[in-house]
């Protein structure tokens, strides 16, 4: 039984007055009277959101219990989960922050503290932080993965989010899943966006330039498709904000939607930009709005000089304190602010002549019950949702346990998708991508079509059935594992391990490429043989379009028949060499 919003807010207020709220972690540094009281510091405030994945309304979202760090990331943020996370960041056990940042006590805490995120609640928080600091000295940055992730996004081709971000007041954004719409749609959506879209690392291909792309790209000589940076006057300082889109977009997602653009990290071009901004443009601080993923951001901070802060996303890590990377006496702060509208980062900078003197950082969880909904935004969200409500509100089945996705390996919602695929195609094995978006459903709740769409809504949802040899299956698993566990961050692509139905395996994340996976067995215990052929079902093919029905319809059919979501067997690998890894819950 959930406490009503009004009761909860009253309870929080009373508790604060009575001083009974535990003083916890970074929250203890502010007064307990108001959870969202952030003292003003310095002369420039950067508000940072990322990876909301189209979640306009409040949701539940369970953080991972497995987020392994390898190589330089071993045992370091963001690869710390559960109790280790609480210790590392000084978060009080049992607190609201524990609920926001970790998977611990998720079911009980969700009942107590309710949903997170939602643009109407976020709007209230953003407005308050802007007003208290001074609107002229505050900017709102969006790291991307904004236009994709919900059924409404899919139907409006991301335009619902453009309208919502315009009302929210996003000043600058960069992107990743934005590029899963056709390039013409990307350009028309950006034209409707009232802020500016920034990306220093997306170049036009030479073929496209020859075919006339010079008509629309930002700059022909640099070949940049989009504006790379802006300089904004804030609190008497000149602050450069550079966009860094997801560098592996054409590898991780279908290249066919954006044939004319090429992506990479391009840190050499970034260094040239930073040097020019510092030497010739009188810039006092340099901030990169990045969609690299946190490990790549840390690696990039070690390679590129002169950046003061990297406000990052992609890997969906809610990290309460920035990682500080020191290089040649200069410190770069690396931040990551989670996903699904759950968090808002607040970075206040004290900027002097040509340098940053100090900072204050808060990562604020957006508790929907604590922040009253902004009326105008609530109306907009309702209007965006209304045309698709009948589709999304269909009740499919009741959850027998918490359904979630996030984690390096299989989540319970993924198992449902994998089971649905096997059932539909009568397949021995099923594969489902290791996306990091997708909301959670609490035990006993009804799984609606909207929740299925949260987990599946891409612009390439078609399913397939095909025959694969055991050797091919191993090749796929090894390849995906290397994209997550390669010790060199620049060779990772983000995302989690591909999810499997009908088979299990053993995984050594620390082994070399090609040797991480073995002991592949079907559910009946039979060893998978390299030369034998297996029937494999899957979805979200990046190479070419598959022919089968959309994954949400396959999953919905399965749930309608099941009525109750019961997972008979969670296919998850046996892990070796993970003892002592802070990103692993034993």
């Amino acid at each position, binding site marked *: 039984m959930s406490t009503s919003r009004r009761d909860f807010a009253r309870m929080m207020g009373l508790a604060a007055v009575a001083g009974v709220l535990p003083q916890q972690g970074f929250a203890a540094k502010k007064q307990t009277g108001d959870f969202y009281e952030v003292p003003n510091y310095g002369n420039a405030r950067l508000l940072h959101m990322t990876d909301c994945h189209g979640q306009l309304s409040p949701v539940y979202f369970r953080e991972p219990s497995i987020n392994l760090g390898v190589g330089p990331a071993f045992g370091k943020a963001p690869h710390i989960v559960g109790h280790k996370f609480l210790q590392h960041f000084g978060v009080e056990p049992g607190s609201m922050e524990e609920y926001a940042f970790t998977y611990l006590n998720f079911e009980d805490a969700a009942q107590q503290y309710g949903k997170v995120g939602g643009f109407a609640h976020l709007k209230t928080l953003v407005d308050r932080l802007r007003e208290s600091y001074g609107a002229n000295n505050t900017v709102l940055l969006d790291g991307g993965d904004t236009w994709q992730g919900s059924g409404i996004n899919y139907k409006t081709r991301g335009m619902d989010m453009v309208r919502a971000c315009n009302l929210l007041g996003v000043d600058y954004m960069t992107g990743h899943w934005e590029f899963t719409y056709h390039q013409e749609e990307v350009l028309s959506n950006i034209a409707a966006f009232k802020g500016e879209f920034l990306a220093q690392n997306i170049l036009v291909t030479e073929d496209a*330039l020859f075919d006339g792309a010079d008509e629309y790209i930002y700059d*022909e000589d640099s070949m940049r498709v989009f504006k790379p940076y802006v300089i904004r006057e804030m609190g008497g300082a000149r602050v450069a904000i550079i966009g860094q889109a997801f560098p592996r977009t054409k590898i991780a997602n279908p290249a066919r939607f954006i044939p004319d653009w090429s992506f990479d990290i391009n840190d050499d071009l970034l260094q040239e930009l930073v040097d020019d901004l510092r030497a010739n443009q009188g810039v006092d601080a340099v901030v990169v709005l990045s969609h690299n993923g946190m490990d790549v951001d840390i690696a990039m901070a070690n390679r590129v000089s002169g950046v003061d802060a990297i406000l990052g996303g992609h890997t969906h890590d809610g990290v309460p304190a920035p990682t500080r990377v020191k290089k040649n006496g200069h410190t770069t702060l690396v931040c990551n602010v989670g996903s699904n509208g759950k968090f808002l980062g607040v970075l206040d900078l004290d900027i002097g002549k040509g340098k940053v003197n100090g900072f204050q950082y808060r990562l604020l969880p957006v508790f929907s019950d604590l922040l009253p909904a902004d009326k105008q935004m609530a109306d907009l969200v309702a209007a965006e949702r209304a045309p698709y409500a009948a589709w999304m509100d269909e009740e499919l089945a009741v959850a027998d346990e918490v359904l979630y996705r996030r984690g390096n390996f299989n989540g319970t919602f993924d198992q449902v998708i994998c089971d649905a695929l096997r059932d539909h195609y009568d397949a021995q094995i099923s594969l489902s991508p290791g996306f990091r978006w997708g909301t959670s459903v609490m035990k006993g709740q009804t799984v609606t079509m909207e929740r299925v769409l949260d987990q599946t809504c891409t612009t390439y949802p078609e399913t397939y059935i095909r025959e694969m040899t055991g050797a091919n299956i191993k090749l796929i698993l090894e390849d995906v594992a290397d994209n997550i566990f390669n010790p060199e961050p620049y060779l990772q692509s983000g995302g*989690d391990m591909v999810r499997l139905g009908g088979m299990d395996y053993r995984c050594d994340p620390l082994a070399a490429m090609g040797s991480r996976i073995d002991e592949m067995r079907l559910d009946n215990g039979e060893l998978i043989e390299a030369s034998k052929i297996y029937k494999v079902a899957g979805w979200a093919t990046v190479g070419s379009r598959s022919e089968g029905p959309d994954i949400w319809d396959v999953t919905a059919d399965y749930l309608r028949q099941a009525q109750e979501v019961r997972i008979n067997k969670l296919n998850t690998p046996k892990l070796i060499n993970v003892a002592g890894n802070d990103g692993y819950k034993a």
Partner: protein
Amino acid sequence: MISRRSVLKAVFTGGAVAGLGVLMPSIALAAWNKAAFETDNQDTAMGALFDGAPSASAEVNLKAPDIAENGAVVPVTISSSMAGVKTIAVFVEGNPNPLAAQFAIPAGTKAEVSCRIRMGKTSAVTAVVETASGLFSASKEVKVTIGGCGG
């Protein structure tokens, strides 16, 4: 200032632009070395092209992506400021035929070539620059992945 598009147009329509030999394969064809291009072994290919083995050199600049966006067309650029560059060759060790291309650099031409190579799997890419005084190389591993599953 001439625009990039105009340059490209000039090249595609047959105009001569120094340093873009890759777009004029006839130059390379003149030096076609069947044994070097058809072997499945990189050392054999180098032996068929050169007298002796190259030594790694910081004077050879090899630009290639860490991860290929598309293994079928991986962009590589090789340049060198060394004097007297005669040829530039590109090898992909993991390919069925490791020698991907060799460019003849006419005297007085800027030693910079760009081309797109096909790669079947993750492999070292090696550029060898042949000058009047010897053989010099640079290598880089380029990852080719099946992709998908991005966050």
